[in-house]
């Protein structure tokens, strides 16, 4: 299992870009990296997924270096509603036993 390590918390202000990095040193060749967002009293929600290089969608970008031992979630111009816990998850081809880490609590201030 690829263990993930993230900062416990981060603070930001509205309108800023936020980058959250996740370390996954023992990621396997066929593993994918997926980021989830969780608001209080809700289940985690998919944000973005990638295998290598860069992926961008309407809400975020994901940067993965060539060695794939880390990944960075980039949230452009955050708002107060982006205050949540963000998890990175590394999972294998069989969607097998993947482990959520402790997550990063992002607090966006006005």
């Amino acid at each position, binding site marked *: 299992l690829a263990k993930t390590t993230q900062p416990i918390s981060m603070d930001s202000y509205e309108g800023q870009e936020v980058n959250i990095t996740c370390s996954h040193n023992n990621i396997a060749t*066929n*593993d*994918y990296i*997926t980021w*989830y967002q969780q608001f209080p*009293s*809700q*289940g*985690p*929600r*998919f944000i973005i*997924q990638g295998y290598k290089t860069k992926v961008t969608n309407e809400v975020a970008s994901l940067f993965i270096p060539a060695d794939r031992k880390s990944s960075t979630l980039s949230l452009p111009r955050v708002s107060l509603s982006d205050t949540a816990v963000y*998890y990175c998850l590394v*999972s*294998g*081809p*069989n*969607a*097998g*036993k*993947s*482990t*959520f*880490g*402790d*997550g990063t609590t992002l607090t966006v201030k006005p």
Partner: protein
Amino acid sequence: DARVTQTPRDKVTEMGQEVTMRCQPILGHNTVFWYRQTMMQGLELLAYFRNRAPLDDSGMPKDRFSAEMPDATLATLKIQPSEPRDSAVYFCASGTGTGKDTQYFGPGTRLTVL
């Protein structure tokens, strides 16, 4: 908009009672996960199924927890007997079971055991 549903949303029970939580995965998804979330332990994977067969339940306390999928539209998690330390939010998630699998989470069942 397809969603995972879970019932009940909240459950308060007394120690020793049986608790059954239900989950309806998204139609067409063949993988179901059960998680438990507490402040102390975070999100813990209890069990997961593919095509209704249990693939891994090593995260569950075997003596009191059991998970089943009677059919493709229903997954159940039972605790018997329940204990105060079982108090947590239990999430069900479903997916398509591939390496690119996205897990779609339900709203959770908040369990309080007195």
